[in-house]
């Protein structure tokens, strides 16, 4: 048992614990906050996996941006901030059963999966490597992603914007 393993277990525990907390909390805001901890611990895991850049991105986008968006979403739509879970027992059982089955099957496959070798130099100049790859090998997907983001931006605005008539109606 070395330090790395201890760190991993702490992070994993936080991630899973916050996830389960998310499922069991009743207030929506609390749920989102709980998930922030998960995101953060995932960032920590990225660091352990020699992906420092990704860890920062994770913190920026997930723990920061997406969580904020979600909180905005909650605030803009709140009428009651509690999610009363009225899902029927049969369906919960169905979903739970499916998930357990899925988990078991997957678990038995990956339980002792190991490819033996591992990358050793990944943490060296991590950001630079990503940058080089992104602008050389993956330049087309990168550009496409930018288009996607643009479309998402426009789409989000159009969707969230009130209709003209509605606006006119409200203004009266």
């Amino acid at each position, binding site marked *: 048992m070395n330090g790395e393993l201890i760190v991993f277990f702490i992070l994993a525990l936080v991630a899973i614990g916050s996830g389960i907390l998310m499922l069991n909390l009743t207030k929506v805001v609390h749920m989102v906050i709980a998930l922030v901890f998960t995101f953060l611990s995932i960032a920590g895991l990225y660091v352990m996996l020699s992906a420092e850049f990704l860890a920062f991105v994770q913190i920026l986008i997930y723990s920061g941006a997406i969580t904020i968006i979600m909180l905005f979403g909650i605030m803009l739509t709140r009428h009651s901030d509690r999610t009363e879970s009225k899902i029927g027992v049969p*369906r919960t059982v*169905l*979903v739970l*059963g*499916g*998930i357990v*089955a*899925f988990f*078991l*099957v997957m678990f*038995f*496959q990956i339980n002792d999966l190991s490819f033996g070798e591992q990358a050793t130099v990944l943490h060296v100049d991590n950001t630079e490597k990503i940058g080089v790859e992104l602008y050389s090998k993956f330049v087309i997907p990168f550009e496409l992603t930018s288009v996607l983001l643009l479309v998402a931006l426009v789409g989000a605005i159009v969707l969230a914007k009130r209709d003209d008539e509605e606006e006119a109606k409200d203004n009266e």
Partner: protein
Amino acid sequence: MNPLIWIIPVLPLLSFVLLLLFGRRLKEASAHVGALLTLGSLVLSIVVLLNQWGGEPVKETLSWLTFGETTLSAGYLVNPLNALMLVIVSLVSFLVQVYSGGYMHDDDRFPIFFAYLGLFTFAMLGLVLSPNLLQLYVFWELVGVGSFLLIGYYFYKREARSAAKKAFIMTRIGDVGLFIGMILLFWQVGSFEFDEIFAAVEAGEISEGWITLTAILIFVGAIGKSGQFPLHTWLPDAMEGPTPVSALIHAATMVAAGVYLVAAMFPLFQASEAALTTVAVVGGFTAIFAATIGLAQADIKRVLAYSTVSQLGYMMLALGSSGYVAGVFHLTTHAFFKALLFLAAGSVIHAVHTQNIHEMGGLWKKMKWTAPLFLIGAMAISGVPGLSGFFSKDEILAATYADGRFGLFWIAVIAAFLTAFYMFRLFFLVFTGESRGIQEKVKESPVSMTFPMIVLGILALIGGLINTPFATYLSDFLAQNEALEIHHHETRWWIPVVATGVSLLGILMAWLVYVKKKVTRFSESAPDLHYILLNKYFIDETYDYSFVKGTRALSYFWYYIDRFVVEGLVGLVTGIVGWFSKIGSRFQNGQVQLYSSVAFAGMAILLLVVAWIGGYLT
């Protein structure tokens, strides 16, 4: 010999077709058309009969139907028995058509009536001419249809409808016996032809058991047609038809077809003692059974109907006692005197418009022709010496005695006594004494009606002479048929004496009871017995409660099975499918979460299955 034999049945068929097509235009003339065409048949039949006298049997066939390797043929066969029957049938048919010209005069469906008579005569002649069992069966059924149509002639009467239906169904029950017997015999012999069947029987190709079985099944057909117990109930009901029809079909010809069938198949019956015994016992029982019912009936036609049943039983008894000649002889004489009796009864009904004998009486003086002719008929059937019935009945008694069935012999004697009694009861109640009913002027019937009666009266008087102990024309004639072994039994002197004695005793009794009123009527002395007899031993009721109601109950049972169980099962299947669809449609509630849950669960199951089958779960 005679290439025109097939014309004999075709003429009445022609009459049927013509009258059916043009009857409406012919109107009154249709009687002439029918009678003339039948007269043609009669003449030809007489020619055929005369040619048969000492001649050879004639048989011609052509192929009718082929299946597999077998060819069934149709054609005609003339032998002494057939020739005799041809004459009887066409004669009675002709006379009845003449008679009907007067009797049915006021009916507005006159042509149809004659068309039906033509159809019936055609079928009857065809039956008689059949060279094989199959063709016989075909005409056998057609005869039944003719009878059915004529019984139901007054279709608007409820009783006529049920009587017609009953006649058809009861005889069909018998027919099925014939049907089965015929088919079984076919698979034993490989042919329906009479001569081949007899040859096979003689050669011993068929086992004793099969012969008995098929003979009894064929006899079942005869039971149905000839109104023998237990299928006799339709015959009295058939009196709902017009009276000439009763004379033609239900006295002289069709009901005799059963006797004819047994006579025609006689070599088969002869080969099995058990079959002969069955025939004799059924015949003997029917003879006395129907005679007792006849004692109590009040309807003039019903008395005659039961008398017919009884006399047919006599004929069966004769055949069953190996008295082939006796049976055929009685068939002949019976055709004459019973047709005469019916026609006379029709004449009476025509005059007084009632059939209840208790409302008649005193008609002797008013009906100068009918009354004596009826008396002749009654004397003939009672077996008064010298008349036709005497000789034939005597022959039957002798045959029965010679066959050694003494029980049946005495039954026959008692039946003869009863016959004489109820016939003269009828005669005295109708013709003597004072008029009891409300009767307006009673007129004698027209010549068209009396003429046939006179012809039949003469035949009833002298018909017996064709086969007396001294001159056995008939038995010699019939003996020409080589397939038959005809027993000649020595005549015992005391049998005619006993027969005469009992019939005279019966007449005397009737006279004492109904004319002199010296003896109380047995409806008063034994009311319970009378009640049973009046209700015909409750056989109709028994059948109604057992078979008719039973069939109906069974039908309803199956109907409800069909309605509820079969359709219920179908409903169950559709219900299950529907239930599944309902469950399925519950999942289609528009919520993405549910859809994805189900999809995911399905995927998980697939995954499990694949992993399980692939062995990844170890």
